[in-house]
């Protein structure tokens, strides 16, 4: 009797898990399928014939390409800034022995607590107060502040892992602090620093909320363009854009995973 009940419940459990897995994967399958749809109207899934027309549309549409160009330039610039500033903060946190270290740690991770809409709204008000109404700089500022917690955290994880004795050896052998940093710490932490950079790039490309506030008619990111298209003409060029983003991001994340294990970073400390 107990066995029967146990088995039934176990079967039920497996059924629920299977349903959830289908629920998690189905939308992505549908989007990928629909991006290759040969029909030029919104038909039902699955497509009857396949074509690359929506990708052609995406890559030849000026609205999307303008967004993509801005997205990539903002992502590259904010990645460079965020990685360098993150590295300086992480170095100070890893090696410094000061009392307010915990407070600084909290400050540096705080953008994760502030809802991104609030960050976007606050930056919009601040930038217009100082006369920066539109263009590249507001977007860059927004992306630097939302990616910094990740670059600080990831490069800190790499720097903390270096045994103190290695650097002390360099100091004993006569290297000064700077030289010890550039010849010992930096090369040893390079995997984490690279991972930090990829993270910054991915999170910058991914952002919607902050960019939506800081975009203007001529300077907007690809996700902002996609949101705009979802509202105005809902066609499958958005699916093609989505598949494009999926391929780029997945490739980048696979790179990081090979290097350092996304697992550890997403799971937190």
């Amino acid at each position, binding site marked *: 009797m*107990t066995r029967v009940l*146990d088995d039934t419940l176990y079967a039920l459990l497996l059924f629920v*898990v299977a349903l*959830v*897995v289908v629920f*998690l*994967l*189905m*939308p*992505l399958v549908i*989007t990928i399928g*629909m991006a290759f749809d040969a029909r030029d109207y*919104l038909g039902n*899934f699955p497509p009857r014939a396949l074509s690359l027309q929506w990708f052609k549309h995406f890559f030849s549409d000026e609205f999307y390409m303008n967004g993509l160009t801005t997205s990539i330039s903002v992502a590259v610039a904010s990645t460079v800034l965020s990685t*360098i500033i*993150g590295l*300086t*903060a992480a*170095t*100070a946190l890893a*090696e*410094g*022995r*000061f009392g307010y270290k915990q407070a600084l740690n909290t400050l540096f991770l705080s953008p994760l*607590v*502030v*809802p*991104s*809409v*609030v960050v976007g*709204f*606050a*930056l919009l*008000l*601040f930038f*217009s*107060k100082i006369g920066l*109404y539109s263009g590249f700089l507001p977007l860059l*500022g*927004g992306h630097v502040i939302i990616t*910094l917690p990740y670059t600080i955290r990831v490069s800190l994880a790499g720097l903390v892992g270096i045994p103190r004795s290695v650097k002390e050896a360099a*100091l004993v052998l006569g290297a000064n602090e*700077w030289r010890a940093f550039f010849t010992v710490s930096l090369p040893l932490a390079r995997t984490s620093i690279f991972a930090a950079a990829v993270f910054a790039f*991915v999170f910058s490309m*991914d952002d*919607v*909320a902050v960019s939506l*506030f800081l975009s203007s008619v001529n300077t907007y990111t690809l*996700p902002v363009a*996609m*949101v705009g298209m*979802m509202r105005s003409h809902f066609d499958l060029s958005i699916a093609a854009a*989505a598949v494009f*983003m*999926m391929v780029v*991001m997945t490739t980048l994340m696979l790179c990081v*995973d090979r290097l350092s294990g*996304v*697992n550890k970073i997403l*799971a937190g400390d």
Partner: protein
Amino acid sequence: MTRLSRASARNLFLLVPPLVVFTFLLIIPLGNVLDQSFRHFEAGGIGASDYAPYTLHNYAELLDRAYFFYFAQTFRLALISSVISVILAFPIAYLIARMRSHFWRGLASGALIAILSVSTLVRVYSLLLTLGPVGFGRPLSLFLGLSPNSATYTELMVLAGLVYFHTPVAALILIGTIQAINSRLVEAAQSLGVPLWKSHFSITIPLSLHGITAAFLISLSVCVSAFVIPLVLGKGKVLFVSNLIYSRFSEVANYPSGSAISIVLLAIAIVLVTVLPWLLSYLNRSTVAA
């Protein structure tokens, strides 16, 4: 100068760039929002002028029933979706945590991470397609007896979106918790004649309670400040507090009111992320002590 003090001088120097960035891109802008939230609203221009008088009106307004509705809606949907996410995540996490093969366990949690690494907007759009016109929108709404354009169906779509995003996160948190539980405890209960389902309810679930609370709180705090999910799936019919802030900017250009809502949302987020976990662990400790 001694070597130590030179090192700490260098550290202070290294802290300059991040501190400048955090001051100008986070602290001053948030301080400005706090200031704006107490200013009297005058139409025109971005933000109230520096001479606008101070008032509590922007906060008092939020107590109005129309505003309260949005806060209630946000909380209700965030709460329901967090509960559903944790319930759906538990069996998945259990199956993964108890996998014998190291390879399959890695692959399964890798798949969860892969889903999480897909861009937010891409996932939201995928759900919109799936639950909307080209996917299962029509059969699903017919099955539920709702019109695909009704407010209830839209609300269900937002709910599905929140669950879609937070089930994998909750599962990843719970895998670690469940792995830490000694599986012999359940085996021992079983060998003493307790049915398997009962031993799970009296052993596995109570022992993973801290993981369950953590997963629930993380999901709740992220859901409460959700923006993209209700923006796209809510189609203007379901508005979260975040969307209200956005509409203060994009539609009515009432910045003092948007500031007041921002401050309230920020306060809620801080309470959910810092105070609540602390309170729970405190209560936990005191019950253990008692």
